């Protein structure tokens, strides 16, 4: 039987992007998007484990109702720093700066991003932002909550607000530059024949993400500047004691930070589209609906910030409009879920680790999205806002959604990135452990939230303890599950089985070049004559380049 496997792929080359040059300097001064992706991968993993450490401290403290493990000031710093590190230094750069950086040029058949030097610059800016933030944490930390609400942050907090803000401010520019780079690359660097509607959906979702990064991030930069200005110079902007308006800050903050949720989850949706199609060997159902729903989310995402302000003195009519728009923004996400599910119909589903993450994502994201409707619904949000229900909801989106997508994508492209296979058995096992641990951590928090447990509480009434014990137990399982991939990815870099160019037998451009790829990605510029996810190309013989699939339909 002539099989998929038989398509001719370049022999493993002696020289690839990893061994093309040696020495620290060759990495620190590289302009190769793949190497920069690895630099990012290392740095965000570092921040992920710091953020994870804080998460474990939170869960340990909340095991008992009394605030007995940490002092309240310490606890307040711990949850603040957990949020800041995870949001700004892990989730926002996670998929775009690592997988996006690595894959966008490869998926569209380009040699690199449009601005390789700016790409390297963005990593250095990220690093500088990270160093400044870590300085702030070591110098004494920050206790304002990751939301920096005024006037607490500008007038009352005695912690390192300005230094932390500066770190986030600097970090924002790396986000803007990455977004800009992706937009220009996707517009101008597509290989011959790679039309917009032949692009993998991962590129569409990162294009939408980049728009949000470029348009939204300047607003948080301005907001942080105003905050620092008021804190340092005592000019009244937000503090009513100085003549300012504290709710204005919340409008400005959420004008960025709500779209930022989509910066975190849109790339993950892109990964899931790839995984669902590729691991079921089926073209995605309703390609254009999935593609445009990403853009719809990016646009609508800018119009819903006021749903964070339903219990502030915001006008009730504004509240109603924001509620309506928040329900509207849920629809494109629902469309994606239905299309992914429909893709699986009469497909050929493998149970490889990336697919397990994708299936987990769809289930968890459905719960995360549906519980978002509780919070969009005005009267219920009044009861639920600032409770553990909100905490559970956004962790379903950010961990169940964004992080599952990131891990799924990392497993999927690991053979391409590293040239090695990860151990499949351990992969499936850890995916299962993470899924169970995650649900055990956050499902009980929905209940605790509706029962009225407020978030950011260092000590809590004893009737909530049972939910917190479950949550802490789940977090321990989740933390353990996260360590497994960390260990086997590192292990596989040296001991893993060598991956061939196309270990999953897929048609995407990134699989038509060796693993790991050469510095220039493709030996010959590819000419694209097939649609995304076209497992049985219509014009097999016309394919130019070395790809001559002699596929067999079954």
């Amino acid at each position, binding site marked *: 039987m002539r099989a998929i496997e038989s398509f001719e792929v370049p022999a493993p080359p002696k020289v690839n992007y990893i061994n093309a040059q040696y020495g620290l300097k060759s990495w620190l001064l590289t302009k190769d998007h793949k190497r920069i992706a690895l630099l990012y991968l290392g740095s965000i993993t570092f921040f992920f484990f710091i953020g994870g450490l804080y998460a474990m401290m939170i869960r340990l403290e909340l095991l008992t109702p009394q605030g007995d493990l940490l002092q309240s000031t310490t606890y307040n710093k711990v949850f603040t720093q957990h949020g800041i590190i995870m949001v700004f230094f892990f989730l926002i750069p996670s998929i775009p700066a690592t997988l996006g950086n690595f894959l966008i040029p490869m998926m569209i058949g380009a040699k690199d991003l449009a601005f390789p030097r700016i790409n390297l610059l963005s990593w250095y800016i990220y690093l500088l932002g990270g160093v400044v933030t870590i300085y702030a944490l070591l110098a004494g930390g920050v206790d304002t909550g990751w939301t920096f609400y005024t006037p607490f942050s500008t007038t009352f907090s005695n912690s390192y607000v300005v230094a932390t803000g500066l770190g986030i401010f600097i970090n924002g520019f790396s986000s803007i530059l990455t977004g800009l780079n992706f937009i220009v690359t996707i517009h101008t660097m597509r290989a011959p024949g790679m039309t917009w509607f032949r692009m993998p959906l991962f590129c569409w979702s990162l294009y939408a993400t980049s728009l949000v990064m470029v348009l939204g991030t300047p607003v948080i930069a301005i907001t942080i500047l105003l905050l620092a200005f008021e804190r340092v110079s005592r000019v009244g902007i937000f503090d009513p004691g100085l003549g300012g308006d504290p709710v204005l800050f919340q409008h400005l903050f959420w004008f960025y930070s709500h779209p930022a949720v989509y910066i975190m989850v849109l790339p993950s949706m892109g990964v899931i589209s790839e995984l669902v199609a590729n691991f079921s060997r089926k073209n995605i159902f309703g390609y254009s609906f999935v593609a445009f729903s990403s853009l719809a989310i990016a646009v609508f995402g800018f119009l819903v910030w006021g749903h964070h302000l339903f219990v502030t003195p915001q006008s009730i009519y504004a509240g109603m409009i924001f509620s309506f728009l928040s329900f509207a923004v849920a629809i494109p996400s629902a469309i994606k879920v239905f299309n992914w599910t429909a893709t699986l119909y009469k497909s050929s589903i493998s149970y490889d680790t990336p697919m397990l993450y994708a299936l987990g994502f769809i289930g968890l994201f459905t719960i995360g999205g*549906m519980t978002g409707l509780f919070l969009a619904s005005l009267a219920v949000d009044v009861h639920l806002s600032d409770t553990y229900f909100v905490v559970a909801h956004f962790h379903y989106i950010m961990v169940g959604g964004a992080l599952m997508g990131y891990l799924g994508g990392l497993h999927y492209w690991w053979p391409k990135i590293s040239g090695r296979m990860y151990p499949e058995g351990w992969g499936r096992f850890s995916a299962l452990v993470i899924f169970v641990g995650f649900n055990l951590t956050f499902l009980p928090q929905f209940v605790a939230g509706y029962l009225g447990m407020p978030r950011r509480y*260092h000590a809590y*009434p004893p009737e909530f303890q049972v939910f917190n014990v479950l949550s802490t137990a789940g977090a321990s399982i989740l933390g353990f599950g996260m360590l497994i991939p960390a260990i086997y990815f590192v292990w596989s870099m040296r001991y893993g089985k060598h991956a061939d160019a196309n270990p999953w037998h897929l048609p995407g451009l990134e699989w038509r070049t060796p693993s790991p790829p050469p510095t220039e990605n493709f030996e010959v510029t590819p000419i694209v004559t097939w649609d995304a996810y076209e497992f049985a190309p219509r014009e097999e013989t016309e394919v130019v380049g070395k790809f001559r699939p002699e596929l067999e339909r079954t």
Partner: protein
Amino acid sequence: MQSWIPLVPDSASTFSWKVDALYFYLSGITLFFTLLISGVLIFFVIRYRRRTPYEIPRPVAGSHKLETIWTVIPFLIAMTMFGWGARVYFDQYKPPTNAIEVYVVGKQWMWKLQHATGQREINELHVPVGRKVKLIMTSEDVIHDFFVPAFRTKADVVPGRYTTMWFEPTTPGTYHLFCAEYCGMNHSGMTGSIIVMEPREFDNWLSGNIGATTPAAAGQQLFQTLGCASCHGANGEGGRGPTLAGAFGKMTPLQSGETVRVDEGYIRESILNPQAKIVAGFGPIMPTFQGQVSEDQLVQLVAFIKSLRATGQTPATAASPAQTASPGTAPSPTRNVR
């Protein structure tokens, strides 16, 4: 009262069942879609598992009909959630007309409350069953949030302005009061109790606490000592400054040509920042009292000005709670004393 339905908090206000009903509706829809999606996923994953390593399924183009169905139906369902939620929210924010008023001042990390009849409470609030209670709230420092899970309502307490919330308790008992907006070091200690009592017990409680000066009476004293009376008249009858008696709750024209409703927020602003909204026909001669009056004193001044009747008679002259019915608000709770 512990709810008979599991995983739902105590229900003790008229909002409780309205919010719970919507919550159950949302939970039902969530459960339905979660089970639907995961059921279909599991079925497909088993039914269409890869049977031979190299099989390629037949591609499917997609279907506009299906896309339309799963766009329109979720949208319609979402609109029912929106409409229902907005309806109940509107009720929660529509200020009640005849309510007991309680002034709330939040500060790091305690709640100071004062009844219109003068009784002061710290981290505790006694309220009767079956009466609407309106809270007029502000903060001395950072943003706090007055949250009573058993009443299914909360509202931010914001420095520099008054926010209001209301509820009507239905079931006697003691319920949690939480600060729900993170406010610094001892945020989780900024808690207290709401004690809902039968009306007769509540009246007993009120009369057991007389002797306290009502906010309006204290405000009258301040009105004299701060010199307000020299321009606004001892009983708010006006002079070089605008007439205050009977002004509360009415629209008043401004120098700028706009009109503004005289409410708690406007009175407060005019004391702290008198030049912001000058009443038509008056000059910008009033000095600011920023820094000279505390939030407590502001509340008292506001209460006094609210109590001024157009006749020029002030009802807030004595300490007795029985004499402090404010115009435009509820008959004083103490009128129920028999």
